[in-house]
């Protein structure tokens, strides 16, 4: 089961990294509990595919395409080595790795921008150029109620754009429960209204989710247009690091603690013959790599005047 093992490494890296980020920044938005949804969504893509991960926990998706850990940590700590030089929100990433950067924090608008990356690909295809890249974009269950969700997906459906929309449904939007912003049905049921396929799947099972995503990716690659996928998962922590989430019931959290995707994956890996030691080593490495990165990066200078970029607003 090589895929799950690799995913397990990434999931642990995500957990260790996000924990460290949360520790150094009380306003960090932790991904704990949703690692499978994130890794399962963005695993198995080609480096030239364009990704637009949700704002919560995107670092692991950048790392999966070769982005440097130290430079991401630099963003969190406000150091000169960050890709965005302290300008964008810390969770943004480098466009050179074919991703959509976080240049603003109004949720939903970037769904349209990601759709535009798919339009660029479709435009090249329509011009007869060989281009079978796809775009994978993820977003929250709260974000699914913004106008851009509707406009972007409908546009992609009409133009048959090569894009996969994945809703990382963690059942909360800050302090609001799902039923305060959605009346009943699954988000995936919205797909039919746009004439595209919709699938709701267990977001804590990275392999099952990844199968669903990769099927939609193939569809998009072969010119059959967009899909909407819903990965059902749960935000185990508060909205940000410091948020104690007193607005929800500990019982609900306890139930989902039982479904911690890392524990589940570990169990399955053990069943298929991976030893305690091997799995512990993965965990230990992740934690150690992250700790070392933080240690190295803390030594670097903070961003300052040189990064302010008073004359770097316009491209020339």
């Amino acid at each position, binding site marked *: 089961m090589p895929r799950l093992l690799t995913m397990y490494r990434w999931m642990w890296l995500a957990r260790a990294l996000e924990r460290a980020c949360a520790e150094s920044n009380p306003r960090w938005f932790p991904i704990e509990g949703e690692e499978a949804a994130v890794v399962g969504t963005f695993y198995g893509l080609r480096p030239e595919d364009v990704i637009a991960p949700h704002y919560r926990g995107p670092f692991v998706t950048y790392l999966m395409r070769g982005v440097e850990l130290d430079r991401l940590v630099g963003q969190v700590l*406000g150091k000169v080595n960050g890709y965005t030089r302290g300008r964008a*929100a810390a969770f943004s990433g480098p466009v050179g790795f074919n991703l959509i950067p976080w240049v603003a924090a*109004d949720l939903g608008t970037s769904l349209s921008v990601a759709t535009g990356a798919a339009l660029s690909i479709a435009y090249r295809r329509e011009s007869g150029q060989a281009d079978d890249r796809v775009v994978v974009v993820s977003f929250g269950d709260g974000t699914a109620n913004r106008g851009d969700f509707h406009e972007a997906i409908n546009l992609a459906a009409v133009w048959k754009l090569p894009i996969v929309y994945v809703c990382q449904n963690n059942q909360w939007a800050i302090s*609001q429960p799902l039923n305060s*912003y*959605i009346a009943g049905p699954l988000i995936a049921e919205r797909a039919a209204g746009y004439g595209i396929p919709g699938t709701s799947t267990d977001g804590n099972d990275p392999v099952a989710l990844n199968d669903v995503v990769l099927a939609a990716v193939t569809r998009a690659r072969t010119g059959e247009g967009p899909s909407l996928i819903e990965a059902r998962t749960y935000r185990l922590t508060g909205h940000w690091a410091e948020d104690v989430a007193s607005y929800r019931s500990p019982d609900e959290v306890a139930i989902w603690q039982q479904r911690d995707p890392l524990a589940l994956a570990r169990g399955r890996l053990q069943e298929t013959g991976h030893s305690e030691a091997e799995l512990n080593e993965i965990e230990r490495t992740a934690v150690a790599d992250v700790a070392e990165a933080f240690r190295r990066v803390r030594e670097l200078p*903070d*961003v300052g005047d040189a990064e302010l*970029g008073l004359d*770097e607003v316009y491209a020339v």
Partner: protein
Amino acid sequence: MRRTYVEAIVAAIAAEMRSDDRVFMIGQDIGRFGGPMSGSKGLFEEFGPRRIREAPISESAMVGSAIGAAMYGQRPIVEISFGEFLPLAMSQIVLQAANVHYMTAGEASVPVVIRSRLGDGPYRGHPQSYEAWFPHVPGLKVVMPAMARDAGRLMRAAIRDPNPVLFLENMQCYHAVREEVPDEDDPLPIGTARVVREGGSVTVVATGWLVHRALAAAERLVSDGISVEVIDVRCLAPLDLATIVRSLRKTSHLVIAHEAWKVGGFGAEISAQIAETALDALDAPIARVGAPGIPVPSARPLRERFIPNEDDVIAAIHKVMAY
């Protein structure tokens, strides 16, 4: 009772809700959570889910539905958590809310309060200052308090106003600014500026957090023998030009300061009204203090360089005094 800026706002909302059942709130995370930055703390406990209504992340529908409810008999307060999201409701604000009364020839009106949080804040999140767009649009009132008691009194006035009022709260002021705010307090008529510090050498007209920076600058200049009068604009629309002109006729020197980008900011409108109606009062060019022409950067050191501060106000004062 001494209250912070946000506590004064919340107390004002609670008082108005107690006396008028038509008043209710629409917003995100305004329930048990107590609102972004405690902006509705305690209201859910007192008024429950009927009157403290948590909405989906649907800024346009939130504002639009508040407008419709206002047109049909209620007096909603709709909260856009942060100014960064106002552009998502732009059309509702400038084309629906602003137009109804005039376009229906007075048949209908829209007594809605649209609350939002502007400026840099203690957590640096969502730090846009888009206030300058709105006084351009006839039909809106635009309120932007800097002081705790004014904030409460203006919120009372905004809720009672039969027109759409954009109520823009400054995030730095939120927990940092406090003063005595009585439980019972009168609404403050919308459309008056206030001289918050008297002085004779130069007038600094400011909004929001820059009022406080201007006050601090004024103190620092005492030892230089420069006597600074500081005016808190409080309301961008309608604008109380008379108070500004009165001060300027005394000081003959004008500095305008706000947190928003300098170019195209509301300072330009104040300056233009002076250049149109009181040019003769000026002994020196009008200096504006505002943010430089870059998008709002995120990391703390950059943010601190970006937001105009006391030194910027002092430099501007020196410039006009040295002319």
